[in-house]
């Protein structure tokens, strides 16, 4: 039976889609059968980030409305055969996603996969609540930045009240994924530190993704960063996060500043 994981955040542009693709690829790389679903109707992007934009024929809404079979809409990744994508529609109206339809699609997918990763749209509207509704696990993506932390707090509130699990009196498993973290700036006191964010949001940490050029490089070429450059700092951080999602204990080190000679001189003087 699959685990349904929602990747959510509240604020836009913090790395939900990047993280959905990277975690999905990392889990699939480890042998699990994974499907990543784009819930951002109207503004789909997961297909682009995963390099499948030219292979989309049918989408989530076609399946929800019964115009296409699930097997017709699922796009199998060209690099990893146990990774699939269910794209969002770009044209139809947002309300085309019905609650019963989504529930039916998810229950069909649960039989075929180990992980169902729901890439949530930003905000707290219908699309976002629809993406989190049936989740077993939530990854809350947050930047070390005030507006992002505030919106994440709001989303945590929704996860605890508006999900199926919460309504049945259960607790949804929640994890924090801190992205775009710059250890040098955090050390200089110019960026919220990991501990600050953890203390404010008080949900367990699943990973820290360092700010890196690799992330943009990977999305430029349409490949999850965990496939494009698995050895890069963000690649490794996502692989570790994926292992933690599977329940493994992986030591989490807070990235610290790596200083060159120039950095040492400069860093010391600026401190």
């Amino acid at each position, binding site marked *: 039976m699959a685990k349904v994981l929602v990747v959510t955040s509240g604020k836009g542009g913090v790395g939900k889609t990047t993280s959905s693709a990277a975690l999905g690829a990392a889990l699939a790389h480890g042998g699990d059968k994974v499907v990543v679903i784009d819930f951002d109707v109207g503004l789909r992007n997961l297909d682009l980030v995963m390099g499948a934009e030219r292979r989309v024929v049918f989408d989530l809404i076609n399946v929800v409305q019964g115009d296409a079979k699930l097997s017709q809409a699922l796009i199998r990744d060209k690099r990893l055969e146990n990774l699939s994508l269910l794209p969002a529609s770009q044209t139809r109206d947002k309300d085309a996603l019905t609650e019963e339809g989504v529930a039916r699609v998810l229950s069909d997918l649960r039989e075929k996969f180990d992980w169902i990763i729901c890439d949530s749209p930003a905000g707290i509207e219908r699309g976002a609540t629809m993406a989190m509704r049936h989740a077993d696990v939530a990854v809350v993506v947050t930047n070390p*930045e*005030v507006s992002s*932390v*505030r919106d994440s*707090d*709001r989303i945590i*509130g929704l996860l605890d009240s508006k999900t199926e699990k919460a309504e049945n009196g259960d607790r949804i498993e929640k994890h924090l994924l801190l992205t775009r973290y710059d250890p040098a700036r*955090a050390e*200089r*006191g*110019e*960026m*919220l*530190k990991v501990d*600050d964010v953890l*203390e*404010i949001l008080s949900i367990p940490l699943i990973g820290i993704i360092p700010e890196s050029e690799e992330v943009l490089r990977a999305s430029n070429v349409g490949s999850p960063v965990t496939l494009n450059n698995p050895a890069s700092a963000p690649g490794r951080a996502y692989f570790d996060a994926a292992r933690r999602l599977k329940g493994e204990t992986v030591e989490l080190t807070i990235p610290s500043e790596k200083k060159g000679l120039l950095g040492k001189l400069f860093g010391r003087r*600026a401190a």
Partner: protein
Amino acid sequence: MSLMSFFNRRTSAPVARERLQILLAHERGIVGGKPDLVAQLREEILAVVRRHVMVEHQNVQVKMNRDADISTLEIEVEIPAPVGAR
């Protein structure tokens, strides 16, 4: 001058952290439907002070600090100098 200000620049992350803690203390109260303790305290303390001195709303600062064992509520009320005091 600009070099000096570079050295003396106050780091911004602690400010961000403090702003967030206050803000979220407020918002969690609102969303959870529970009475907003900090805002309520602020209003009531202000009302008491106003019985004696006229205080502007913006001259009151409420800070909430949470540590592992204790939380402290710091309230700073700026009282205007009495008229003709100088």
